[in-house]
């Protein structure tokens, strides 16, 4: 049976090669804070990356989202080579293809739940109020649609943030310590919701967390220390159980 390299390549949603990130300080450059030789995700895959605070996980997600730019290396998402795109093109790409869940939720305090979710589809996708409403119903906030974010509990706010991350029907959802501000019960609920919603919407999920329980709730997980050569000074990134 012949090996179909093209078909195999098409199944990959995210493919990272020789990624390196340094920061400029005046005229000089810092040592690499992130060095990833190889990392890939298939479409629909759900994976958790575990690592302690300050090890470069957020920088890793920022690079994948196109919020930050790599010093060298390539990041391919679907058919798009992110490192070849201009800033405006990366913004547009992110608006259409990537959902983001932040540790501190980052909801607009004066916006209602519905408006916060609509904001997630405002910069690239067509605003579909019905879809926004259905997402909020799906995360159990059907009776809070017109509540302001500031009127919600912490757990409810993070559920709105999850709904917002799915609002633009993204191919890839990046979750950066999404349970960092939640208690154990709320954490489990939010992670489970995230996993279910990504599965239902066919989105790939990449979650980073320092919380072992959160990471353990994923079938596939990876230790960031094994991925980031800059931290370890050795090793590469392969998906494996930790």
């Amino acid at each position, binding site marked *: 049976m012949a090996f179909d390299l093209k078909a195999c390549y098409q199944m990959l949603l995210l493919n990272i090669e020789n990624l390196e990130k340094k920061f400029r300080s005046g005229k000089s450059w810092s040592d690499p804070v992130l060095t990833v030789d190889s990392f890939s995700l298939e479409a629909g895959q759900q994976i958790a990356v575990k690592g302690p605070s300050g090890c470069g996980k957020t*920088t890793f997600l*920022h690079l994948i*989202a196109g*919020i*930050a730019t790599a010093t060298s290396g390539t990041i391919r998402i679907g058919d798009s080579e992110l490192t070849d795109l201009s*800033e*405006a093109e990366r*913004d*547009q*790409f*992110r*608006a*259409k293809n*990537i959902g*983001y869940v*932040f540790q*501190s939720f*980052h909801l*607009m*305090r*004066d*916006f209602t739940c519905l*408006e916060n979710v*609509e*904001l*997630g*589809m*405002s*910069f*690239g996708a067509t*605003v579909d109020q019905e879809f926004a409403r259905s997402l909020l119903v799906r995360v159990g906030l059907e009776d809070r649609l017109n509540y302001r974010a500031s009127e919600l509990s912490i757990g409810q706010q993070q559920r709105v943030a999850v709904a*917002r991350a799915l609002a*633009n029907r993204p191919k890839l959802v990046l979750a950066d310590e999404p349970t960092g501000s939640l208690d154990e019960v709320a954490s489990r609920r939010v992670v489970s919701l995230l996993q279910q919603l990504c599965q239902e919407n066919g989105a790939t999920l990449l979650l980073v967390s320092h919380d072992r329980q959160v990471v353990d709730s994923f079938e596939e997980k990876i230790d960031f220390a094994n991925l980031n050569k800059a931290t370890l000074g050795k090793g590469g990134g392969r998906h494996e159980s930790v």
Partner: protein
Amino acid sequence: MNPFRIAAKGILSRAVSSSVTAASIALSVCLLLLVWAFKAEAERSFASADGGFDAVLGPRGSKLQIVLNALYHIDDSPGLMGWSDYEQIKASRAVSAAYPIAVGDNYLGVRLVGTVPEYLADHKYREGVGFELEEGGRLFTGEKLEAVVGSQAAKRLGLGIGDTFQPYHGLIYDPQAKHQEIYSVVGVLGATGTPADRVIWIPVAGIQNMSGHAAAAAESVNAVLLKFHEGARTAGFQLDMLYNRRGDRLTLAWPASQSVLRLFEKLSWFDLALRSIAALVAVIAAAGVTATLYNSMNERKRDIAVWRALGARRRVVFGIITLESMGIVLAGLVAGFVLYLVVGYAAAGLLRERSGVVFSVLAPNSAFWGVPLGVLGIGFLAGLAPAIKAYTVNVTKDLV
């Protein structure tokens, strides 16, 4: 959530500071419109309120005072001129009509103006439009103690046909200065929208011979309103030469409306000062917009970083902040226009009551497009600094 809604939410989230800023813009817009539109409209109104006369002849003195007294009924007369002067100018070949005007009495503060009945019967105060009497009325006859009341004066005093009144001496009401004569109202004029509406018309002999007046008044008038023959283009120049340059007893105010327009020219420094103040208020209000938005940028850096993380391009963020600035200015503009209408109509009513001049608040004026364009331009400039600050937000740094 399109950029307009996001900008509107931004404005509403800072409702107090946005309202205060919009209110200051509203005040400056109102002031600009009032100064600008009122001057233009006042010039137009006064210039067209010449009552259909070409010139006014009066005693030696200020042309403006003669015109204001005889045509607009709002100033004292500079003095008296002889009846013979009236007869002389009336006989001039260039003059098609001459009507004497005598003043000096009032009824409860409303001025009595003595003239000949032909003025109200024959004169056209506007092209083809003459005075009309309300039903049941007639004009006064030359010698009797009869009066015809202007429409506004009738309303103000509650006078109607058949009513009687006793005049008071002077142009300002003094209860102690009551004359003995009792006048009967024989007619009420229909509204003309001219100063004629605000006065009580009586025979010129009535003023001349009113009890208590000086004997000289019997042979005098205060001014003569003149209408030249059509085609008598040189009449004004000739009479100007005769009375103003060669003579030293009388003054000819010609053209009649020019005297008032000259007053506006003399007041142009005041107009400029008012416009400058209004413009300064607009600039200060715009600075308020800048300060409000710029200061809010520090606390909104995180929100803007989130917009950017959700895919908002820098130019979209720039646009949203500019829209916020324009939104505040637009709200101020609308409120300012409404305020202008309220103040404008109140002022127009007062002006009509005091001078009889009809002022149209909504008459087409360059201020109605010039002020909004200027203020929106200032609003755009005011939003630039905050928008640039938003444009340069560092997403990775501020997304914490």
